[in-house]
């Protein structure tokens, strides 16, 4: 038989048109939006807090003029209160509490960093310098949220819901026969449903990443952001995160599409896959390759520093992977997705409509 690609493309699009609405606007899918957009709230809150703190430090700097970073650096643990006050001048803010052992906290600011000195019984107890937010710091936190929360929980469980329900949901709704009674190859139905799921999750999680990125940069001065976008790696980072999100949707989506066809209870395969992905870093090298996260880690634009302070479970999740080139990583995820889709298509050919058994 001659492959009729033109017809199959039209039919795939017809299936996608039917499925896109379901994937985007399912009432039961509300929590996908909650998962996807939760980090935006975190970054929005963070930016708001940083901006508030920045304004506060500006006010403090006005109250204690002449305080500079050099003067702050001159303060050492051995100094007396008088000596400190002589260098920094009167504090912009101070608090006192306690009767038997009175504690006094003094604060200065140069408008950016905050310098805090704590006295107990008139003796210097502690000094600390709180810096303002930096791109490096926020970028690292962004990468950590992306890897630990976004990829492993939000996208993972979002894909569980969307892709697992493409066939399974219609079995439960008793409406799958609508497709199976049309002159359309089952493989085309699989392709159309997968395309719709990928489009929906790609848009939801991609838009969320873009908004998170905007949220992260909201508190930086305009000229700094402009410089980051014009001379730094902002666009490259943003596109990488969106690309990794879409690849994750393709990889996990294909796995859950197969799960929805083969299995009745979606939570068991999802749990097993989550475990598999979580222990990927400690698996033998050959087994690591059969994982979506293995390739996605390579593609993440910002690496998470693994110092001794990182707790054990997180260190395991962020465990460095063997070096794989970007093209290999992209082909790896798509290859894995393709293999899974072939399995789904093959299995769909022998699928039966047996609603009573559901």
């Amino acid at each position, binding site marked *: 038989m001659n492959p009729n690609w033109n017809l199959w493309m039209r*039919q795939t699009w017809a299936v996608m*048109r039917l499925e896109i609405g379901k994937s985007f606007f399912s009432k039961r899918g509300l929590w996908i939006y909650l998962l996807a957009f939760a980090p935006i709230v975190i970054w929005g809150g963070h930016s708001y807090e940083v901006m508030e703190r920045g304004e506060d430090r500006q006010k403090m700097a006005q109250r204690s003029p002449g305080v500079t970073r050099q003067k702050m650096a001159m303060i050492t643990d051995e100094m007396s209160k008088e000596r400190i006050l002589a260098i920094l001048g009167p504090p912009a803010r101070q608090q006192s509490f306690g009767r038997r052992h009175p504690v006094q906290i003094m604060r200065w600011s140069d408008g950016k960093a905050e310098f805090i000195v704590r006295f107990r019984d008139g003796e210097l107890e502690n000094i600390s310098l709180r810096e303002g937010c930096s791109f490096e710091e926020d970028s690292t936190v962004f990468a950590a949220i992306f890897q630990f929360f976004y990829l492993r929980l939000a996208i993972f469980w979002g894909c569980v819901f969307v892709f697992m329900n493409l066939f399974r949901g219609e079995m439960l709704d*008793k409406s799958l026969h609508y497709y199976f*009674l*049309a*002159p*359309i190859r089952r493989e085309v139905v699989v392709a159309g449903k997968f395309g719709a799921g990928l489009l929906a999750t790609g848009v939801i999680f991609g838009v969320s990443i873009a908004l998170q990125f905007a949220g992260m940069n909201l508190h930086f001065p305009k000229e700094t952001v402009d410089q980051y976008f014009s001379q730094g790696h902002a666009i490259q980072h943003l596109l990488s995160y969106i690309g990794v999100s879409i690849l994750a949707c393709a990889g996990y989506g294909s796995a859950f599409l197969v799960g929805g066809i083969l299995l009745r209870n979606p939570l068991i395969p999802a749990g097993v896959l989550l475990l598999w992905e979580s222990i990927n870093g400690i698996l033998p090298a050959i087994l690591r390759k059969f994982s979506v996260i293995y390739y996605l880690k390579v593609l993440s634009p910002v690496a998470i520093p693994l110092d001794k302070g990182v707790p054990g479970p997180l260190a395991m999740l962020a465990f460095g992977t063997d070096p794989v080139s970007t093209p290999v990583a992209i082909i790896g995820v798509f290859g894995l997705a393709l293999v899974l889709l072939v399995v789904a298509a093959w299995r769909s050919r022998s699928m039966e409509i*047996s609603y009573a058994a559901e």
Partner: protein
Amino acid sequence: MDNEIIFDNVSKFYGEVLGVNRVALSIPPGITSLVGPNGSGKTTLMNLMTGLIQPTRGSITVRGMSPKDPENFFRTVGYCSQFDSYPKGFTGYQFVYSFLRLFGITHAEANDKAWAAIQRVGLEEAAKRKIAGYSKGMRQRIKLAQALSSDPQVLVLDEPLNGLDPLVRAETIALFREFATAGRHLILSSHVLHEVDIISDQVILMAAGYVVAEGQIRAVREEIEDHPMQILIRCQQPQRLASRLFEHDHVVEVKVHSDGGGLLVKTKSADRFYLLMNEIAAGNIDIETVAPVDDDVNSVYGYLIGSEEPTR
């Protein structure tokens, strides 16, 4: 053979539960009714015929095509299933139109065909309303419109008359008759035996997963030897006629009708009986009508399937 529906020794088991067993059928064009009690295997047979389930043993071809090749198969076959569920939020029009788009045809063509099918089942006014608000009868009709929309050569209908009011039921039966002309297949299942009688060219009687009998109902009736044929004869001199009939060994019972205007006769050979009636009619007994009374689906069903009455 390429214009028949062929079941070649087909069995279907759901685990250890029997669906249908050793079904061997060749269904010619025309209207064929599947008749049997609940659980007899009618829907299983239809689902097998359309590839929604697959046989455990045997094979099925519909006009030379296998249900395993849906891309070509469903350009010839339309199935109005018993499943009463629809893609969420669809209007009647969307239900038919979106189905047609799955054929890979253009918007304009799908639109025209959808409206033509909707018009055929008389649902134009309700077409833009959501199916969720439809009555049972309207849902049946929109499913029928969907099955008819691609102008198939084979139409399979599972209980298509359920929920229809008498007027729509009559219109739908006329639609079936119109469809079944020009060598097309119409396969339907029904519990309403007198309608099956009116509609069908042939019947397939099923019980407990087996095909009990198949063919034209009169031919099936003639093969039931355990139950002699009953024939009602209207005449002026029933006693005289009765004495004539008793002279023949194929006549096993003769009763004078309760109104005294005829006889109810049981015979082991309908053919010989009708020849005899020709002779008698040529003689001096005035015979008004001769009509069989138990060669309908209801009687045949009762003789073959016995106490397992279909739901009415």
